[in-house]
């Protein structure tokens, strides 16, 4: 690659990073930036474009929504797995869900998986609930799962996962019980799929979340945002929380220094409670349902 060509590609990379940030709020870390061309290769091929330079030229020249959407979907990191962070899911199963069960006298449970990627997190929660169905039978359970990537949501909604996907985090007993063979792939059972409402949504212009949720998960999402945008997301999650809600972030993420909407949860290590909620936390709480 000549120096001119390298410079031009860097310019294209800057434009595409800017597009990603403008549309999703995500900033490409250096580690992801160098993989940009690899991530975009299928898009280049599908549109008959030679390189990122040609891609940016077409994006600038033509108002091609489909191409722009394809670029955004390709640049978003959709890495996910079932029961990602087993310790956390163990805490959800042993402590958090039983706690919410005791707290909700109205027998409704509302969960929001914000930034759900290809859906494994939401399905993992649905599996935990189904495996303890004698406890939840008769309850009204809502699981909302949102992500900005339309292709990720499409896959999540289909419930179809490759052999490699189902082997990452999913216990064999759960695979047999809750999935069925689908050609060379595996598909989540209709019971699981019916439990989850997958919606494409932008955390900075959230339209799909309504009312307050008992359990909110926003894991491995904040790390892609600027501090100001992290605060905006936590504020949004705070608006959709009530006094007894539990918020779970990714292992490397925290609310510390990110505004005053949440603080460390007094009971569940590594999780968070709404700041203003502590006084009423142990007394139970009312909840607005959207």
């Amino acid at each position, binding site marked *: 690659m000549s120096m001119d060509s390298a410079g031009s590609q860097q310019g294209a990379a800057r434009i595409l990073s800017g597009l990603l940030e403008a549309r999703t709020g995500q900033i490409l870390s250096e580690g992801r930036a160098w993989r940009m061309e690899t991530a975009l290769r299928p898009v280049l091929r599908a549109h008959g474009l030679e390189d990122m330079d040609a891609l940016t030229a077409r994006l600038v020249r033509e108002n091609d929504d489909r191409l722009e959407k394809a670029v955004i979907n390709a640049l978003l990191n959709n890495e996910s*797995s079932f029961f990602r962070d*087993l310790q956390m899911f163990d805490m959800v199963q042993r402590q958090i869900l039983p706690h919410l069960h005791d707290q909700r006298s109205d027998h409704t449970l509302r969960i929001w998986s914000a930034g759900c990627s290809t859906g494994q997190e939401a399905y993992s929660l649905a599996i935990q609930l189904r495996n303890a169905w004698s406890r939840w039978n008769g309850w009204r359970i809502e699981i909302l799962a949102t992500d900005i990537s339309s292709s990720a949501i499409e896959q999540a909604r289909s419930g179809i996962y490759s*052999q490699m996907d189902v*082997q990452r*985090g999913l216990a*064999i*007993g759960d*695979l*047999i019980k809750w999935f069925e*063979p689908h050609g060379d792939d595996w598909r989540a059972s209709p019971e699981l799929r019916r439990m989850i409402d997958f919606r494409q949504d932008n955390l900075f212009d959230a339209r799909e979340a309504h009312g307050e949720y008992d359990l909110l998960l926003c894991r491995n999402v904040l790390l892609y945002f600027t501090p100001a945008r992290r605060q905006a997301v936590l504020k949004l999650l705070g608006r959709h929380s009530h006094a007894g809600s539990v918020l779970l972030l990714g292992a490397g993420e925290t609310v510390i220094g990110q505004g005053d909407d949440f603080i460390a949860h007094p009971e569940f290590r590594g999780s968070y409670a709404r700041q203003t909620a502590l006084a009423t936390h142990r007394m139970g709480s009312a909840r607005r349902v959207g």
Partner: protein
Amino acid sequence: MKNCLVVDDSKVIRKVARHILESLDLTVSEAVDGQDALNQCEASAPDVVLLDWNMPVMSGMEFLQALAGAKVVARPKIIFCTTENGISHIKAAVDAGADEYVMKPFDRETLESKLSIVGII
């Protein structure tokens, strides 16, 4: 350090598995068939067995049945690791007492995940 016994008649598979398992801080021993694995389980006590299905002398399923009646200090965790990827095979293995099941081909992340599920790492 926990020990994993890799049971496979393919030298290549044993080598790949060893490489991954050692990178996960496990000590590794190898067996070429079910009978060899049974002898090793009686002599030492591996924490986990990564078990192929189709092998000469004694298959993975025959090994599982023999292990139930064998004199072992502690029953190891059993992770089947096989190209038999049909649901009937998976169910048969679980019914016979397998703790986990890896469908070949596998990678580091898959093995790490399965070892974590059975509590080895």
